[in-house]
């Protein structure tokens, strides 16, 4: 992002919104499983950014948005159940036997439960990577932690998920 541009400029602000609003929504949803709160967090973060547009450079805007969104519910709300859908492509595969589909659904239910049992930080980091394709470095930047800390979360998340699903 070019720092000569000003966040107060309508076009820059709009670009930032269209680039980040969806992921901020997801990020908050992964943590708390609450769509309303995730919507509110997006609004709150961007309103705050607009109010402080003169102070926040475009380069800093992204981490500013995530920080505001994250702090909004920090220690305030208890996480609800995170409900995630599966992409349509698995349903389109029509070659599967009924047994396979049953097995598959059973697995999905287990995965769903295991994900919900994960700590908020691990769940949001894991899903930002798996669903939104965010690189570890990017997640580290917006969470304000080291890449290694993100790797640790990913590792623990995957390990815990497998243990829960395999029933260990």
């Amino acid at each position: 992002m070019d720092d000569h541009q000003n966040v107060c400029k309508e076009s820059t602000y709009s670009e930032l919104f269209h680039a980040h609003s969806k992921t901020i929504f997801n990020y908050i949803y992964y943590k708390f499983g609450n769509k309303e709160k995730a919507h509110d967090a997006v609004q709150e973060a961007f309103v705050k950014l607009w109010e402080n547009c003169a102070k926040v450079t475009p380069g800093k805007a992204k981490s500013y948005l995530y920080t505001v969104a994250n702090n909004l519910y920090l220690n305030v709300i208890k996480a609800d159940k995170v409900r995630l859908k599966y992409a349509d492509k698995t349903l389109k595969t029509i070659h599967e036997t009924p047994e396979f589909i049953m097995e598959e659904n059973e697995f999905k239910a287990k995965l769903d439960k295991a994900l919900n049992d994960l700590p908020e930080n691990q769940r949001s980091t894991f899903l930002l990577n798996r669903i939104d394709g965010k690189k570890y470095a990017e997640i580290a930047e917006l969470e304000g932690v080291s890449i290694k800390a993100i790797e640790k979360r990913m590792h623990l998340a995957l390990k815990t998920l497998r243990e829960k699903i395999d029933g260990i």
Partner: protein
Amino acid sequence: MQENYLAKWLNGELSEKEVSEFKKSKEYASYLKIANASQDLRAPNFDVNQSWELLQAQNAQKHPKVITISPFKSFLRVAAVIAVLLTGAYFYINTLDDNIKTQLAENKEIILPDNSEILLNAESELSYSEKNWDSKRAIKLEGEAFFKVAKGKKFTVTTDQGTIAVLGTQFNVENRDGFFEVTCFEGLVSVTIDGEEQKLPAGNSIISLNGNITKSQVEINGQPSWLNQESSFKSIPLKYVLAEFQRQHNIEVELKDIDENLLFTGTFSNIDRDLALKSISTPLQIKFKLEGNKVLFYEESAP
């Protein structure tokens, strides 16, 4: 296996050797399944455009606070400075006295707010406050002027050599270097020279030559001679006569072997230069030589 190898594996950072070793483990199948399945997960729908519109509505309310106020503030700041400057300039200009000046060989007529008239002779200057004229009829004068004062409050003329105070009359003031003359043509004029007040009735003139005060009667034909384009003198040292000649004709005068304190009585034209030169030289029995803008007066017997 290295630290956080599951994260490295997901990110494709494991070496081939490490990958093949990992594939042999019994947990690998489960990990692979979780990794693939989790990639197919989808978050709830988020309508970017709807959210953007909602945000725009929210920001619109805060818009004036953030964007509009600051340029407006700086505009106000600039406007305030301009207003102060304009007000200051207005009052400053208002307190300035009106100033009227004549060049060499130039006369001016000034009508004052109370219809008093001033005729300003050549190379003279006067100033007065037009704004305060009704409360204070006061004039500062350098040079020579004729006054026709309308009846009213005290009218004062201040010069560096003396002060004239009247109520309503016609008088002439000549205030030149070392030469101060007041002539009253109508009514009564009060003249103060060096703190000494003198009453000057119509038809009288008072002259101060370097502090020596003499009074004399003058012919009363209603107005001073310079208003008829003439300069009249009665027993006045030649240097003052020539000084007036220079002022009226914008010419440079030089004297050779001539006493500048010779007394001159007579009149010269303020328009016709050659006639004026003769008017001055003939009664004094001296000669003159005119060269461009210079005139040399010399003794008849001198070469």
